[in-house]
């Protein structure tokens, strides 16, 4: 019996040692199963001072408890990541909410129709500026929640214009031809250039044609519409006229563009409302600026309102989409108070029409000589003609920029546009 118990204790020792050895060999295995409903909602945006700040504000004002993780990515990176992610179809690593520029939106919606989650059940599209709906919807379904407006205005130096003999009234409701005339006067009388332009960026052309309800493509969003595009022709002519009037200061990047007006070198900045804070950044020019309506093309149907830039939020069709949609709907989609805060705290002008009745929209802007800037912009916003940007805005613009140079250098307008048309059709086929 004793012998046996000794035997047993040896077995025990052996067993213990075996266990230790095995324990030493085994390693931790951590498995990561993808949860059906994530705790955390992620959002991608690009500007910490603007759209990211707006998201933060929305998070704060949201009454329900939500874990929102806002990730800053450069806009180009967002486009690239979305393309890579969505085309692979796995949706892995994709955010729940993503901000997309309106002029790019259609390309995503068309290319990946199932990747986005329709928001019709959450928001009432009619609450938003009409021009925002075409780019953010597809086949009658509303996918985007319109965020900021790119409603344009003509920012101008009251002192320079006054020196040249012009007042606010003279700049209101004018055509681009009139604008050029004024520009010539300003140049002659003050020696200042009228405008700063980047030859690689035809933003001004886009502003011009949208004011006439036209675009690089027809209403279907795909048919290239350059040749025989009356609005585009007029825009080109105006562009060339500006060049020939010799009051254009060229820039090649954003800082040079900013520097052009901050340094007082140019008299006007026809641009989206978002340029406001950059102008205000130069404190020494306080009170010397005002904003008029954007000039219009001299043609039928053209209005003194247009759009430049602007983006909208989209919800991706991945787990957590209901949470994300609900969050957006209750903040950006329906809260008047939120838009008041947005204007005051972030300086972002939304496209939610009921918000314009709020007090914050009536505020006077000291920098712009007490002008009710927000109120003006939201008024103009409602006039912006709606166009379908289609999918290829930037591709076509590259072609047009080259033809523009040709046109400036003496090529006939018809030929230039016809060539651009041909190139675009060949390239986008």
């Amino acid at each position, binding site marked *: 019996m004793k012998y046996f118990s000794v035997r047993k204790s040896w077995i025990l020792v052996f067993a213990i040692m075996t266990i230790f*050895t095995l324990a*030493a060999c085994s390693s931790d295995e951590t498995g990561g199963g993808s949860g059906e409903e994530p705790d955390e909602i992620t959002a991608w945006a690009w500007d910490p001072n603007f759209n990211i700040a707006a998201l933060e504000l929305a998070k704060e004002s949201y009454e329900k408890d939500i874990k929102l993780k806002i990730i800053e990515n450069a806009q180009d990176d967002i486009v690239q990541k979305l393309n890579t992610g969505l085309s692979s179809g796995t949706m892995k690593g994709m955010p729940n909410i993503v901000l997309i520029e309106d002029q790019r939106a259609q390309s995503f919606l068309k290319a990946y129709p199932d990747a986005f989650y329709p928001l019709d059940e959450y928001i009432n599209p009619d609450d938003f500026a009409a021009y925002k709906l075409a780019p953010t919807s597809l086949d009658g379904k509303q996918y985007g929640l319109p965020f900021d407006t790119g409603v344009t205005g003509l920012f101008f130096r009251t002192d320079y214009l006054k020196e040249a003999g012009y007042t606010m009234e003279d700049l209101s409701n004018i055509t681009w031809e009139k604008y050029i005339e004024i520009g010539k006067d300003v140049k002659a009388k003050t020696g200042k250039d009228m405008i700063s332009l980047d030859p690689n960026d035809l933003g001004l052309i886009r502003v011009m044609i949208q004011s006439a309800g036209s675009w690089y493509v027809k209403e279907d969003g795909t048919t290239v519409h350059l040749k025989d595009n009356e609005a585009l022709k007029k825009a080109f002519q105006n562009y060339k006229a500006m*060049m020939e009037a010799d009051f254009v200061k*060229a820039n090649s*990047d954003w*800082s040079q563009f900013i520097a052009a007006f901050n340094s007082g070198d140019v008299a006007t900045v026809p641009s989206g409302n978002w340029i406001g804070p950059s102008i205000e950044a130069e404190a020494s020019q306080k009170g010397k600026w005002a904003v008029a309506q954007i000039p219009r093309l001299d043609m039928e149907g053209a209005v003194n309102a247009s759009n430049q830039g602007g983006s909208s939020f989209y919800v991706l069709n991945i787990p957590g989409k209901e949470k994300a949609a609900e969050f957006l709907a209750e903040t950006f989609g329906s809260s008047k108070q939120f838009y008041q805060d947005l204007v005051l705290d972030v300086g972002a002008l939304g496209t939610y029409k009921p918000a314009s009745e709020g007090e914050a929209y009536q505020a006077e802007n000291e920098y712009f000589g007490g002008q009710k800037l927000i109120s003006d912009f939201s008024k103009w916003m409602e006039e912006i003609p709606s166009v379908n940007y289609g999918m290829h805005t930037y591709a076509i613009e590259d072609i047009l920029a080259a033809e523009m140079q040709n046109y400036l250098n003496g090529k006939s307008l018809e030929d230039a546009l016809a060539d651009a048309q041909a190139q675009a059709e060949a390239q986008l086929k």
Partner: protein
Amino acid sequence: MKNFLKIIRHNSLFLKMFLIMLVSIVAVSVLITFSTIRMSHNLFMETFSITNSKVLSQIKQEFESFSYSVVFTTMSVENNGTIKRSLIQDHVTSTDESSSVYTISQQMENIYSDSPNEANMIVLGENKRLFNMKYAHWPVTAQELLDHRITQYTRANPGTIMYQYVDGKITNDVPMLVATKALMERSTDNIYGYLYIPIRERDLREFYGGYTSKGNDVLLIDGSGQVVSSNKQEWIGQYESDLLAVAKDTEENNLEYQEVNVFDKDYLLLSASLPALDLYLINLVDQEMVLDNLVDTKEIVFISALIVLIAVVVVFLISRRITNSLRRLVRQISDMAKYDFGKPIDESGGYEARKIAIAFNYMLNELQEHVDELLQTQRRQRKAELEALQHQINPHFLYNTLTSVKFLVKEGKKEAAFDTIDALIPLLQNALGNVDETITVEQEVANIHNYVQINQMRYGDRIKVNSLISPDCLHYHLPKLVIQPFIENAFFHAFTKKKYGFIQILIAQRGDKLICEVIDTGDGMEVDKMQSKKGKRQLFSGIGVRNVHERIQLLYGPAYGVEITSEVGKGTKIKITLPLSDEKTKDITISKNNTKRRFLDG
């Protein structure tokens, strides 16, 4: 203390064995652990330096291809007439300016699209025209850049491509490595602009980021000793001229690696120079950390410690078990010598100890049997001897007695002759019986009277014999011829000087012993000489005084026997101590054990 020493002495075998085992186990484990760690360390170092050298050369290739594309881009920009024109011309009209800006941008786009990586490209004219391919990466203005030290250096060294580290406000605290080159007119050596190819440190990190891991760090250090890029962000921007010196040394002496102490730690340093970039690529391996990841020293030590512990416990138990049984064996054996040979030792403990105990017990039994047999034989021999002596009635005694009787008859003393013969008969009868037989005290006393009567008849009654027998002792038995020899002795030796005297015989019970005393009032003697006295001719039988004591002890054990006290001139006292014995037992008394013990003690 004494107890402790005693414990140590008692357990010395165990302690010796256990200590030796302990020391050897610990030594073996420590040596094996140590050599295992060392071996894996060496193996790791060897393989690590090989793989890391390869990795380093791969990274180097990436940098070289980057520097090649920089050179290529630089050449393209320098050779581009359009760019040159745009940077030299002062534009008069908006159209000119616009087309110039457009074309330079297009040209740069073409050149830039050839260059891979995340590098940016900036062209700056002395006329403050700035073209920035990736504005978002570095929104810098013409004036800032023109005034910056990197442009000044470039201006000072127009012929070479320089790689310079830029950090701080101008880059919005995004560290960058900027390749710069002055753009010169060939004919006049006039600088008309500058080319910048900035790459953000975080993009530079992509070149090697994939090869790094915890404790395996890569850093780029420029000619001034400043860390330009590293996967360890806290190192970026620091000046580490010592590190640079070691890297240079490694490179110049073609060493595979060196051990250095930087950033307050010991590292293994591998390096490669990137001469085109005037940079050194350094790979720092935190030996400790990497080794810890690779070889879990703690675990190895823990396992060996555990093994040692288990082995020690097992050794402790086993050696204790073995030595305990041995120790018990030894103790039992030594105790045996002290107390009792008859007690067999415990047959317990380990196999060996049990075998030894069995063998020992077997031997003990054999020995005992042998001794018993020997004792038996001796006793038998002695008995036979005594018997022979007893039977050997001295013929002189018979002759003398018979002669005395003849004279009595001749003298007509018929009555006396008859009495003498009457006394002689039971005396002879008694003497011829078994030596082992006992007789009652009464009979013995009668025998003695007969013997005395014969002697008195022969030698006259000048010596008087009185006997005082306690009546309650009469029925006790005692061996034959125990008292008679002393009476005889007293008759023939005690009264050589004195002619008259008494012999007293006292028999009484004292405690559980029967005491017989023979007291004479004779000459007395010196006790020592008693042994040598040998009366021969007058003796009644072969049994003399000398062997009475022996006989008694043989029969009853050491507690009994004969004691003689004598005083010269006064007399002698013989005291015989015997057990009280009621029956006539044949096997007289002494147990086997007693015999044995007596034997062993002797």
